[in-house]
Structure formats: C-alpha cells, structure tokens
C-alpha cells in the first residue's frame, strides 16, 4: 500500500517530484493495517465507494491520533465528505477497512458510530427546521424522565449552558426555522461538541459563519484537543487549517495523495497537492471602476433587519459588503433582488428609477444573485446540472417555448469547464454533486443570465482554492467588461483582495466605508463590531 | 295544527331509484300542501351514517321515520332505538332482517325480483345456454336477495350454466368494462346476461353493442326500470322490471300517518281504495308487498310518460 499515489491530472513530471510516497511522510505509515498503538484513535485504509457506478472515492485513507486536529484536504469532489460519511456509517463503503480504537468496525448506521464515540458535523446542514434549537441538539439522546418522557426543561437548560460555555448567542427555545444559516451552523457545531465524543468529524464547519464565530470555534477545538479528543477538520480556508490543525491528509480525485505534519509543509505546496498543479499567488487586482454609475440604492430598510441603506455602484466596480454574522447583509441583498419584501427604499439603474418587486423584475433589469443558502434558495436539487444552469435564462435557450437542447448542452458544458464543475454528466441531479461543485452550479446559473449587476452572497462558500481563483478571475473579468459586482463575504482576505471598495454593515446599518490602503483587517473588524 | 314531521332515511341520493323514491315522496299531496313536513336524509350508502341519522332524528323528536336501509342486519338496531323513543317507524323498499320492529313496511320482494329477472332471461334463452351475472355491491340486501332469487330459479333450469359471476357495484361503467372483458374471454359463448340492477344490465348492453353483436341475440335483463332501461326495452334491446317508487314512497307516508290517526284516508294511487292494485286494509296490516311491474312494449310508453313527471 506504499505505492506512490497516482498523480491525477496536471503535468506528470512536475506532479511526481511534488508527490512523496506517504510512507516517507507520515512516520506511523509502516504500521498501517497492523495492530495500532493506543493513541491511534482511527485508521482507515483503501476505502472505496461508487454511486450508481460512478466512483466517488477510490482509495481513502486516514490515521487519526488522540488529541490531534487532523486536516483532511482536497479539491471539490475529491471524496472528503463521502469518506467521512463512510466513517460515520452514513454511507456503506464498497471496500476497505475502518479501525476504531484498534477494533475493525463496519457501521451500518450512525447510531453505531455515535455509540463508539464518533460525532460529525455534516457539510450539508440538515436541521429539523420545525423543532426547537434545544430539541435539535439533543435529538436521539433526549434527557429522560421516568424512562419514557423527554425532559424539555433540562434540554433547554443544558442547551443554554452549552451556548454560554461556547460563547454562542442563540436562544435555545426558538425553532431552527427562525435562524439564519449562520446560526444553524453554530447549532450544528454545538450539537456535535456536546456529544463529548472521542472522535469529532467537522466537514467545513465554518463555511457559513464569520471570522468572529470561527475564532470561538477554534477556542473550543483547542480545549477539546487538550481533553485528548481527535478531530478531523475539513475546510477550504487554508488560513484556518494552518492556524488550527497539526497534521494533514490530502485526497485528490478520490485518491489518497499524501499525509504528514503541517509543520513540514508550506501553504504553496499544500495547495499544489490539493489542486494537482502549481498555483501562483493571485496578483492584487487594480480597480477597473469607470466611475459612471451603474446602480444606486437609497434608503433601503426592512424593519428589524436593516435600516436606511444607501450605496452607489459604478460600472466596472466590485463593491464589498463586510459585516459580522447577522449584520443584515443577506437580508439587504435579498430585498434588493426582490426576493424578500422591503419597507422602504428606491433603486435607479443607469440613471433611470426602477421598481423591483420580484426576482423576475430584478433579472429583467440585469441583476442576478448568488444566494447565501444554495440548498434553500439556490438550487433545484432534484433537477439535473444542466437544468439548473439554464433555469434562469431559459428564454435565451428557447424558440416558441421549445427548449433548444443542443444549445443548452453546449453552453452547460462550457460552464462545467469554466468553473471546473466535477460531475460524471451534465444530466446527473445536482444533489449528487459535492458541496463545492453545487456552489459552482449556482455561479454558472447567474452567469447564464448575462447580468450587468451580480450580487454574490458568500460566493466562494465551500469551494476549493483552485476554483476560488477561477471565481475571482471571473469576477474581475466580469467587472472589467463594464459590469458591476456586489460582493458579500465574511472572509476578510477574500474581500480585501477582490473589492475595490468595502462597505461595512453593523447591526443592519452601514457603519462606514473603506478603500485602498485604509482597507485593512483591523479597520474592518473595528468598524464591524 | 302544526305539520306532522316525518324523516325519511334513504340509502343514497346518488342512485336513481332513491331519487325517484324521494321525488315521489315529495309529490305526496299532504307534503305538497304543507300538512306534512318531510325531511329526506341521505344515508350515503353507509350503514353507520344511517344509524347516526336515526340518532339525530330521535333527538329531533320526529313524529315518524321512514327507513330505506342500506344493510339488512345493521338496520335493526336504529329502528329499535327509534321504537324505544316512541317514534313510528315505517319500512320501505329494502328490508331489515327483523321486520317485526316496524310499525308497518311496504316493499317489493327482491327475492321475487331476482326470480323474475332470471326467468325472463332463461326463458328467452330457451332454457339452455350460458349466462353471466353482474352483481350489485356485495352484502347489500338488494344484492343478497336478488342473487338468492336468481339461484333458486337456476335450480329449475338445469341446462343453464353460469359462466361468470362478479360484482359491478351497481355501476354502469364497471359493468361495461367487465362485460367487454367477458366477451373477449368467452367469445361467442355468452347467451344471456343478468344484471342485478338496470345500471349493470345497461353497461353490459353497451359492451355487447361495442363488440358489434346484436343485442337481440343475447337477452339482457335488469331490475328497477330506470329511464335508460325503459328506453332500451322500447328499442327491444333488454328486459326490465319496474319497481314502483311512487307506491313505496307515498304508501309509506300513508302508513306513517295512519299510525297517528286511524281514520286517516290514504292518498297513494297504488291503494285499491284509490283504484290501485294494493289492498289498503284500513292501514291495519303490517306488511304490504308492492307488485313488480314487468316492462313490456305495451306499457313502456306510458311508463316513459309517467317518468317525465316524476
């Protein structure tokens, strides 16, 4: 099993000297398969899984030590979630062995994994929306009275205590439905932590939350680490990985590529391992703003969410919206797009006032949006990739109401290539794509509408380093062509690198504007909080 | 004096015969002149619903209840309850197994109908050959008793063979498909068709025609004398036996009223005192059997005329 993993795509010779056989990297590799030492919590070897004949995972491996935070890295569709779901008993592997605390296991259900002290934060947030936060957290292990009865009071008390300990500001008695995506993710995190398991799997736990919450999460992780918990951490935010993890494993195209200690590897090389080719650091883009106004918004308000928001967006400009979680950016964006009602506010596009009551109004005025929550408001999960990509632009692909299949196919294939969407076929249902690839489909859909104004709410959520570059490149090209972008992001580096100008939201109001040299991490955080 | 209040609990106003029955009841002279207030309750072909409607009628203290039961056994208990509450109960059209509970009842004997039905078909077949039987909704008294009549008649016709026997749930559409399939299964073997009601017979008739067969060569018969059946008889395509809705409905009202006031003079045409065939006997007897009227080419036009006014 020490054979050099296959290089995958990318120039072979360059790939070869990048890739090092795992054995020489991870010191404990030679004992793989043998009875493991006591502080080896989990060891999985040559796990494979195919969905309807399409291989998702070919050779998945990991070795997790007690008290370590192990980063599982890989591009979108590399097989991380599939692998983790197998460890958790949510999928069944076609082949391979999983060893937990020295014992070979074949979980048929998550219940068995939980019983063995494994917990997971799944990538796709799936709360029971109509139950309260507390009920969600203690789902399946409700505190009981008299054996049969669920102790609601205790549940809520415990949940409240838990949030207090983690420093999350969430009311345990409200229903999940009333929470923002961000808060839902926090609840999932709290839920997993509260299980006090030995092995904690986190599949992109920070994809929906801001820096502030991420920081609190990291504190929690460190204290768990001290208690000897082993954590598998998946994220596309490499900064986070380098700040929190101590060892890493890289998958590419469903194959194990390399494992080792983060101390022995630098960011550049990790990226090249993940994407299978070298990526130059992205050169800072210089503003392409023409100064002539594209869209100007004034006095936008939705009581309880945001108040008198006014902003001007010039042609060729990328305007960033930064704010802490719950600052009201998404609500503003949705109201602007006509997807949510507003109480006040006017819009003028290229000098003429427009009334946007519904998304179709927005689209016909050349506005497109990448919504914050791809599952809820972004995709039709049951429909195919190609149907999703052209959904908002069908009129361009039809004559007399008849869809031109050929035209659709060629366009969709173009988008699949442009955003490197990893799918076996354009006719597969979107729900069969990996999380990041689903996000790319949303982007592709917006591009298809050929908008003048693009609103992106956390556009790179959950997509890998390689694809992020594609997206950034696309956005600046899009702007350079005289269009405008409104970019909501909670990732400071991202917004600093891509926005010409940044508006900071605080509690539903614009707290200030930053541009050029003034725009620094400190300044943003200061204005936002 | 304020009007006599009578509740009529019928099987289902979705079926033509019950509708004719109800219309006839509303045509009763005393109902028309307002001295009797008649409320028709629709049993929706459900014995429990009828039982509930009895409870309602009882708590409403109606003076009398006229009952057309869905089920022959399930009917007993509600009648008992009404009796206990001191309410006059008159049976009509279909029976309950314990008819002694009734103050009186007026009906046409369904066993007899079954016999006439079978006989008419068998005779036309020359007493030998294969028949198929389309049955009503299984378990309902009309189905049970008409089938009994048919089976008893079969004993007298040893050369008649029953090829198929299946429920069409009183429905014309069901009978249509059923017969189409039978005609394919037994191509050229079916010599006669018995429908436990006219709807079924007519459905079979349509299937026969759709199969390009001449209805006159395959005797078809039903019971009730619904309008389409009368028309078919007139065309010489089927046989039917009319069940006299007027007699059963208006007669029942007469019996309800005479139970209140012995000197009451009946109104229904069917009574001998009004020139009809059925002996009134001063309303004293407990069981009145309304004769079936075989529909013939001679009387069909008259019946169709009458139907226009019903």
């Amino acid at each position, binding site marked *: 099993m020490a054979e050099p993993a296959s290089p995958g795509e990318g120039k072979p010779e360059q790939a070869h000297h990048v890739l090092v056989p795992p054995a020489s990297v991870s010191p404990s590799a030679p004992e793989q398969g043998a009875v493991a030492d006591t502080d080896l919590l989990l060891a999985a070897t040559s796990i494979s899984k195919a969905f309807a004949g399409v291989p998702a995972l070919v050779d998945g491996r990991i070795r997790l030590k007690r008290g370590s935070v192990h980063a599982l890295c890989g591009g979108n569709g590399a097989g991380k979630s599939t692998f983790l779901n197998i460890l958790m008993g949510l999928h069944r592997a076609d082949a391979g062995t999983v060893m937990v605390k020295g014992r070979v296991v074949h979980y048929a259900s998550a219940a068995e994994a939980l019983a063995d002290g494994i917990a997971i934060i799944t990538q796709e947030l799936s709360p029971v929306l109509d139950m309260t936060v507390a009920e969600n957290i203690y789902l399946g292990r409700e505190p009981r009275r008299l054996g049969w009865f669920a102790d609601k009071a205790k549940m809520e008390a415990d949940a409240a205590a838990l949030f207090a300990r983690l420093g999350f500001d969430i009311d345990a008695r409200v229903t999940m439905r009333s929470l923002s995506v961000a808060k839902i993710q926090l609840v999932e995190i709290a839920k997993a932590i509260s299980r006090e398991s030995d092995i904690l799997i986190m599949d992109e736990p920070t994809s929906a939350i801001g820096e502030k919450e991420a920081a609190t999460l990291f504190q929690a992780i460190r204290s768990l680490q001290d208690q000897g918990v082993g954590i598998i951490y998946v994220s596309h935010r490499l900064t986070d990985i380098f700040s929190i993890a101590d060892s890493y494993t890289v998958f590419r195209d469903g194959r194990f590529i390399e494992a080792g200690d983060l101390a022995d590897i630098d960011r550049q090389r990790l990226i090249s391992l993940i994407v299978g080719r070298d990526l130059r650091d992205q050169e800072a883009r210089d503003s392409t703003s023409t100064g002539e106004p594209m869209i100007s918004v004034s006095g936008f308000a939705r009581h309880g969410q945001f108040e008198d928001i006014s902003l001007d967006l010039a042609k060729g400009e990328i305007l960033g919206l930064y704010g802490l979680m719950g600052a009201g950016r998404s609500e503003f964006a949705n109201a602007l797009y006509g997807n949510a009602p507003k109480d006040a506010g006017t819009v003028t596009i290229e000098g003429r006032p427009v009334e946007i009551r519904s998304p179709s109004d927005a689209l016909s005025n050349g506005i497109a949006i990448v919504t914050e929550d791809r599952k809820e408001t972004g995709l039709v999960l049951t429909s195919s990739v190609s149907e999703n990509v052209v959904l908002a632009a069908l009129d361009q692909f039809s004559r007399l109401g008849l869809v031109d299949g050929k035209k659709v196919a060629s366009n969709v294939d173009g988008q699949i290539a442009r955003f490197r969407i990893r799918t076996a076929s354009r006719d597969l249902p979107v729900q069969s794509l990996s999380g990041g690839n689903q996000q790319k489909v949303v982007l592709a859909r917006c591009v298809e509408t050929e908008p003048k104004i693009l609103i992106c709410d956390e556009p790179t959520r959950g997509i890998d380093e390689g694809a992020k570059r594609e997206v950034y490149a696309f956005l600046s090209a899009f702007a350079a062509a005289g269009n405008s972008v409104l970019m909501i992001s909670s990732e400071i580096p991202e917004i600093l690198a891509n926005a010409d100008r940044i508006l900071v939201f605080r509690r539903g109001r614009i707290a200030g504007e930053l541009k050029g040299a003034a725009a620094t991490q400190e300044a943003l955080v200061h204005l936002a909080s | 004096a304020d009007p006599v209040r009578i509740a009529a609990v019928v099987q289902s106003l979705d079926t033509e015969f019950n509708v004719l029955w109800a219309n006839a009841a509303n045509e009763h002279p005393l109902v028309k002149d307002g001295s009797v207030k008649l409320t028709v309750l629709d049993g929706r072909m459900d014995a429990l619903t009828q039982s509930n409607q009895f409870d309602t009628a009882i*708590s409403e203290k109606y003076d009398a209840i006229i009952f057309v039961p869905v089920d022959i056994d399930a009917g007993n208990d509600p009648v008992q309850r009404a009796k206990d509450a001191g309410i006059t109960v008159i049976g009509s059209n279909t029976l309950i197994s314990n008819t002694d509970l009734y103050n009186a009842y007026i009906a046409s004997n369904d066993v007899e109908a079954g016999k006439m039905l079978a006989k008419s078909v068998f005779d036309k077949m020359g007493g030998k050959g294969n028949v198929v039987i389309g049955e009503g909704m*299984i*378990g309902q008294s009309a189905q049970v008793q008409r089938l009994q009549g048919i089976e008893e008649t079969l004993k007298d016709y040893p050369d008649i063979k029953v090829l198929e026997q299946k429920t069409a749930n009183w429905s014309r559409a069901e009978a249509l498909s059923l017969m189409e399939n039978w005609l394919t299964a037994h191509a050229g073997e079916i010599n006669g068709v018995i429908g436990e009601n006219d709807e079924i017979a007519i459905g079979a008739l349509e299937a026969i025609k759709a199969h390009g067969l001449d209805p006159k060569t395959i005797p078809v018969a039903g019971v009730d004398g619904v309008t389409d059946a009368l028309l078919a008889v007139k065309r010489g395509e089927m046989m039917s036996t009319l069940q006299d809705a007027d007699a059963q409905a208006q007669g029942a009202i007469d019996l309800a009223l005479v139970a209140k006031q012995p000197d009451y003079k009946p109104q229904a045409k069917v009574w001998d005192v009004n020139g009809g065939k059925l002996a009134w006997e001063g309303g004293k007897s407990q069981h009145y059997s309304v004769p079936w009227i075989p529909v013939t080419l001679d009387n069909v036009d008259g019946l169709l005329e009458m139907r226009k006014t019903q």
Partner: protein
Amino acid sequence: MSTELTTTAGAAGARSQAIGRFLSRYGILLSFLILFVILSFAHPNFLSTANLMNVLRQVSINGILAIGMTFVILTGGIDLSIGSVLALTGVVAGSLVTGGDPYNPAIAFFAAVGVGALFGAVNGTLIARFSVPAFVVTLGMLSMARGATLLYSNGRPIPNLSPEFRWLGQGFIAGIPVPVIIFAIVFIAAWITLRYTVYGRWIYAVGGNVKSAKTSGIPTRTVIFSAYLLMGALAGLAGMILTARTTSALPQAGLGYELDAIAAVVIGGTSLTGGVGSVVYTLIGALIIGVISNGLDLMGVSSYYQQIIKGAIIVVAVLIDRSRNLNP
C-alpha cells in the same frame, strides 16, 4: 436614534408576528368556534346535551382513525388502507362474538386490535424496510384487505352479535357513550405520547428531516414502522366500535373512511410533508367535519346542498386558518 428606529420597527414587526402566531396556533380553533356559534343559532337543539353526545359519538370513530393518521402523516407518510382494515377487523371480531359469554368484549378487542396491528405491521415493513412509497403500499392494502374481508365473510353481514359486545358501541358509562370514552382515552394517550415522550420527539424528527434523524442515531425505520403499526391497531379499535354500533359486522363498512381521517388531520393543519402538527388540531379537524354533517342534517338541508356547503365550509375553515400566509 438608531435604537429608536429599531425598537419601533421591532414593535411593528412583533405585533404582526404575534397575530401571525395567534392565527397559526389558534386559527382553526377560531374557525371551529365560528362554525359552532353559527350552528347553535341556526338550530335550537344543536346545543342540547343529547345532540352533543350524538356528535361526539359520531365523531369518535373518525376521530380514532384520525389520531392514528396523525402519527403516520407526522412521519411524512399516509395510510389509505384503514377503511378496508377497519372492515376486516370488524368481521373478524364479529365472527368471534356471535356466542354469548361475558368475555366477548375482551375477545373482540384483542382480535380486532391484533388483526389491525398485523396489517399495520405489513404496511410498515414494506414502507420502512423495503422503502416502497406509502401511497402505493397502502393503496394495495386497501384492495387486499377489502378482498380478504369479503372472502372471510362471504360478502354477507355477520348478524346476532352478543349484547356484551354491542355494549362497546351502544353502552353508556355515567351517561357518556362508551365509544366517546374510548376515543377520549386514545386521544389523551396520543397527546401525551406526542407531546411529552421521547418517542413523540422521534416521530416529529423523522417526519421533519429523516436525514438528520438518522445522523442523530434515531432508529428511523423502526419509528416509521411503529407509526403504521399503531395506525393499524387503532383501525382495529375503530372497526370494533363500528361493528358494535351497527350491531352486525358489515363487509362493506368503512368505504372511503381514509379520506375523512386524512381530512381531519389536514384540516387541523398537520402538513402532509410531515414534521409539523398535533393531535389537538386533528381533534378540532374531526369535530369540524362531524359538526358540519350533524348540523346540516339537523337543519334538514337537502343532501345535494349539504355536499356543496360541506365542501365550502372545509375550504373556508382552512382558509381562515391559513390567512396568515396571504402575503407572498
């Protein structure tokens, strides 16, 4: 300044939310009360104890079925077979109690509930274990159970049921009809189960999001199975009561009862997609349906108009309930 704005705004939002919440919680109750008041004015005897007892007795069978259906629908499923299963349990129970010994009620009870549970178990297995859509399984069972009923009873009613048994449908305890008492017990048990027990939480969780229920280690299949098992058992109970009321076991009993039961649940506001709802609302739904028929019969409305009015009332009742959703 900013705070001011926010607060006022907040207040406005809060108020409309409060109304929304009230409607969403009590809307259907409101509809019921309106209906109730109208009927009591429309007819003097409507409010008489005798009549209210009638209504309750009439509601009890559909009510029991609707409670079972609430469990099934909460898990995101549906059961169309209950009408037939009810008939089958009725004839089976009936066939066992034509004799006259005092244990009859017990015998009938175990027979009916047992047979019902058995058929429920078959539904549950096919749905939970073999993931055949509930609609198909129970539609098939609707046909199969009816056939079995006719076969078992030869298509003939089973008469002469023992008086002890019939007491279950016609007797009174302290002036309250036995079926009503049984219904009340079932209702309270179901209410406690769904509201306070762990099993209740699991029912909601499975219906709300089966994926996260699985991830949380809930035995989702067992939970789903159990809902159909329970539904079957309750169909048996209802079949027993109905047979005892009609005093003979009818093979054609229960035709279309599934629709009434589902209607009661849905009118109550339980969503067919599962996860939200309560037996309390189901009770109100069942009462609405029962009161309509009773009231219209009392007023002697002709049956054609009755059907029109009944349909209209059902829609309007729910319209009032849902009116909170009117803004897009």
